[in-house]
């Protein structure tokens, strides 16, 4: 029976790509799929695009391909990524220019058409919040991006057209993997109809979900007490690789001579990651039910996946939009023993008095104590007052939330005078300058047919 091997690329914009080189060199891959877009990444890219309209894509794709494309080309490996972000054509042009300058040849396909901002800005349309049902009117004027999650179909078309490198904007993360599987294994996508058809797509989507977060599928970020230490050599982690057969059955593994761990524990942590209802994991191509999934641990970094069930997706696509939602400015500083806790409280009271005296407009002054309770809030038990004052040092992080940009920019300057006029033994002050814009996220749904009608596939050739 025919099978195909696909390897995980990056799991986010900024991830490490040497593990991908190891997968290409020793993993016997036909495809690499690389996810550069977390839910919030488009917010970062939107700021880039405001500065320079030629940007708005995940810029790491250029150095990544300069390093990896020669390795892939030599072995006939094809590459699919969503690094296009808000500007897939710009990303493809940058890749083309960079490859060309090195004398490298590649046929590049660009998938665009996920931008639905004009629709959300149209006052005639509703776009209710997917979680709380609120109406988009309250944020419409402040929207800065809105992108629909496209499915695997345009990726399949690009691969059928002979693409070596496929660059998309927002597509469902797992579709980056499902596309190559559908293409290589000849699965029906638009013509899926039987439970077996949907089951294969559900298996393919599950494979994509297991690989889309790079090292999280092979022992990275393994949440546990006393077990993570047993995972070998994370410094040389091998990102997960899947071998998938025509009937949809799949094996999760990694390249030989790499670190990390592929077993029942590490794979199921990733299986449920960022999933809500596990019986209805929606994607544009198939709705996945994980209820009958079986992960059979074969040892030696081999986990067999079966039992994913699928059904037809609905007539709408998910959209994630972002809207401007005020500013923040953050400061942190430390106080040392003795009486560190009381001194931190006294200094904080001086700052609160300054905010009031100057009538600095703000919604909230958020305070947490890194090293004591920043990660778990009141669920982290604190020592009593006497013990707190006996601690070696107390770090305070103060964050102002304000609708007023100038108030945010001036926040850091309320602090320096305390170095000479406040409580003793402070150090490590940071945050004098700088405010950053906050973005609210607006998940909603959009009509599928009209979005898909606007999806485009363009071609660029790099070559000597």
């Amino acid at each position: 029976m025919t099978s195909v091997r696909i390897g995980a690329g990056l799991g986010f914009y900024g991830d490490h790509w040497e593990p991908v080189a190891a997968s290409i060199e020793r993993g016997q891959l036909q495809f690499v799929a690389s996810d550069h877009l977390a839910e919030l990444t488009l917010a970062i890219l939107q700021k880039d695009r405001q500065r320079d309209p030629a940007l708005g894509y995940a810029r790491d794709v250029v150095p990544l391909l300069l390093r990896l494309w020669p390795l892939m080309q030599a072995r006939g490996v094809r590459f699919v990524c969503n690094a296009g972000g808000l500007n897939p054509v710009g990303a493809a042009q940058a890749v083309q220019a960079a490859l060309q300058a090195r004398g490298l040849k590649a046929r590049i396909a660009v998938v665009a058409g996920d931008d639905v901002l004009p629709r959300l800005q149209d006052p005639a349309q509703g776009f209710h919040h997917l979680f709380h049902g609120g109406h988009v009117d309250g944020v419409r004027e402040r929207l800065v991006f809105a992108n629909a999650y496209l499915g695997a179909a345009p990726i399949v078309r690009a691969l059928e057209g002979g693409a070596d490198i496929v660059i998309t904007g927002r597509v469902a993360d797992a579709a980056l993997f499902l596309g190559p599987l559908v293409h290589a294994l000849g699965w029906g996508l638009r013509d899926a109809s039987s439970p077996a058809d949907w089951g294969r797509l559900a298996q393919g989507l599950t494979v994509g979900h297991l690989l889309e977060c790079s090292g999280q599928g092979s022992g990275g970020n393994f949440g546990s007490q006393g077990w993570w230490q047993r995972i070998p050599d994370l410094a040389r982690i091998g990102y997960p690789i899947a071998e998938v057969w025509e009937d949809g059955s799949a094996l999760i593994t990694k390249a030989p001579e790499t670190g990390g761990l592929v077993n029942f524990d590490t794979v199921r942590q990733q299986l449920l990651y960022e999933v809500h209802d596990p019986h209805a994991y929606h994607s544009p191509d198939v709705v996945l039910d994980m209820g009958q999934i079986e992960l059979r641990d074969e040892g030696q970094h081999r986990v067999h996946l079966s039992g994913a069930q699928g059904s037809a997706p609905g007539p709408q696509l998910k959209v994630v939009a972002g809207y401007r939602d005020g500013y923040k400015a953050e400061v942190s500083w430390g106080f040392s023993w003795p009486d560190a806790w009381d001194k931190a409280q006294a200094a904080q009271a001086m700052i609160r008095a300054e905010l009031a005296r100057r009538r600095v407009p703000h919604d909230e002054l958020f305070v947490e104590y890194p090293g004591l309770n920043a990660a778990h809030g009141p669920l982290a038990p604190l020592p009593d007052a006497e013990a707190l004052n006996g601690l070696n040092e107390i770090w305070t992080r103060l964050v102002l939330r304000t609708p007023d940009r100038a108030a945010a920019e001036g926040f850091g300057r309320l602090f320096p005078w305390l170095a000479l006029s406040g409580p003793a033994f402070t150090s490590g002050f940071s945050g004098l300058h700088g405010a950053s814009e906050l973005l609210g996220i607006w998940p909603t749904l959009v009509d599928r047919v009209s979005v898909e009608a606007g999806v485009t596939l363009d071609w660029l050739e790099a070559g000597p």
Partner: protein
Amino acid sequence: MNTSDDKVLVPLARIAHARSGDKADWVDFGLFARNQAGWRLIEREVTAARVQAHFAPWLPGEVLLWPLPRLLALKLVLKDALQGGGARNLRHDNLGKAMAGALLRMEVAVTQAELDEAQQSPTVAWWP
């Protein structure tokens, strides 16, 4: 006197592992037993209401729960947990990646024999 039926309170970290993630303003958790003995305890002791009560002093959102017995796992969602979402959350841990640790702090009531069995039975997973 300690009889065999007396319950002890132990944090979930002793019998389970967990990962958390974010979607907009909701944090989700996978909570995993290492073996059938651990799964029986988790299935019995970890309910949506108890997890909600555990987080309530910090994050009073609603909790949803789905058991996945074939994976010896619970899927949980805690609503309204991220100050409106990662890009407007002022916390250091703006995406809730450390919140799985807060879930593993939750205490469950088990007998010493049950705890011993869950901790000493072999893991289903292969570990090198």
